[in-house]
């Protein structure tokens, strides 16, 4: 559920990294945090156990491109992957705009991947939504491990819904595939947002005035990139 604020001229989106335990969700956020310029990121907050397992969530706020004078802000969250923390996953999913499903590519993790993906759909359903309405991408992580399933097999078991979604092979510890994943989900969210606003405006016959003045005053501001 994006938040649009004309006073601050910003739009906020919430992205949740979902997946089974130890698949690399926190590692994704940690890598992103190391690569983004200080001026465009907040602190990486981890609510973890003494053994560094995610207890509640990890959180990383990021500022991204400026489009037509509006700053885009992305709040990245992870969920705890362990099965017993399902109530926590439901809390973190609240108001979600987009999902990155991180799968563990190792053969022995296939069942957990499938269970976690089903759990994601169940928890979205509890919020009255589905993956048909929430943009998501798949990341096949840990491709550097010796016992990984082929990508086409992961596609077969996870990317098999009516509409296939972008998927990425990744090694989050080294950063491989991490920003491709993040850029793609962010772009999907911005595109969905633009489409919905255009649709709403078309339905209402373009009777609004506030945005017109804001756009006139702020047009032409160049896009900014934030990575070092």
């Amino acid at each position, binding site marked *: *559920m994006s938040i649009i604020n004309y006073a601050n001229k910003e739009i906020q989106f919430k992205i949740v990294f979902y997946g089974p335990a130890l698949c690399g969700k926190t590692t994704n956020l940690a890598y992103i945090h190391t690569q983004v310029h200080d001026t465009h990121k907040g602190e990486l907050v981890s609510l973890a156990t003494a053994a560094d397992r995610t207890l509640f969530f990890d959180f990383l706020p990021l500022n991204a491109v400026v*489009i037509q004078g509006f700053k885009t802000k992305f709040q990245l*969250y992870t969920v705890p992957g362990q099965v017993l923390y399902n109530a926590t996953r439901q809390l973190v999913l609240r*108001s979600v705009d987009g999902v990155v499903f991180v799968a563990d590519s190792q053969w022995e993790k296939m069942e957990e991947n499938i269970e976690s993906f089903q759990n994601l759909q169940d928890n979205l359903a509890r919020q009255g939504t589905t993956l048909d309405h929430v943009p998501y991408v798949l990341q096949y992580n840990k491709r550097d491990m010796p016992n990984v399933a082929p990508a086409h097999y992961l596609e077969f078991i996870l990317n098999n819904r009516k509409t296939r979604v972008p998927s990425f092979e990744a090694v989050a510890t080294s950063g491989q595939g991490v920003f491709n994943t993040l850029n793609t989900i962010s772009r999907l969210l911005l595109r969905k947002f633009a489409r919905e606003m255009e649709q709403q405006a078309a339905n209402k016959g373009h009777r609004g005035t506030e945005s*017109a003045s804001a756009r006139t005053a702020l047009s032409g501001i160049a896009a900014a990139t934030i990575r070092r």
Partner: protein
Amino acid sequence: MQAMPILTLQAAGDLLKALEDFLEKSEANFCLIIDRGGNLISQQGQIPEGADASIVGALAAGSFAATRELALRIGEPEFSALFQQGANFSILINAVDEDVILVTAFTTQTTVGLVRFYSARAVKRIANLLADLRANPPEVEPLFTERDLASAGNRIFG
């Protein structure tokens, strides 16, 4: 959960005024309006140096959500407020409506009683503002189009 209405300049100004009045009367240090997913809607006051409002918001939303689950387990639909007391700083979190909460931080320069009293008024005022906004959503043109998005390049994050 309802979609958060677009905050026009007028609506954002009204929320800021409500928060400003609340801070002035309660003598609290800063307050945030956030949705229950942790998204920051409005903020007012002096946030301590080095603190990040979005992080405070995310943690407060998580804390309040966990407390709500606790309430459900003992047969309460929700605890309407949550108070965390510290030696110097304390935090009071109030439910505004089904979707939004108010987070207030204050020092020993004021009292929890005063903050609670004025927060109850602030909550009603904010709830009314948001209800009006939902009942009469502003009509706006698209902030940007897919074409604008294309001109921003393929890389959102460099």
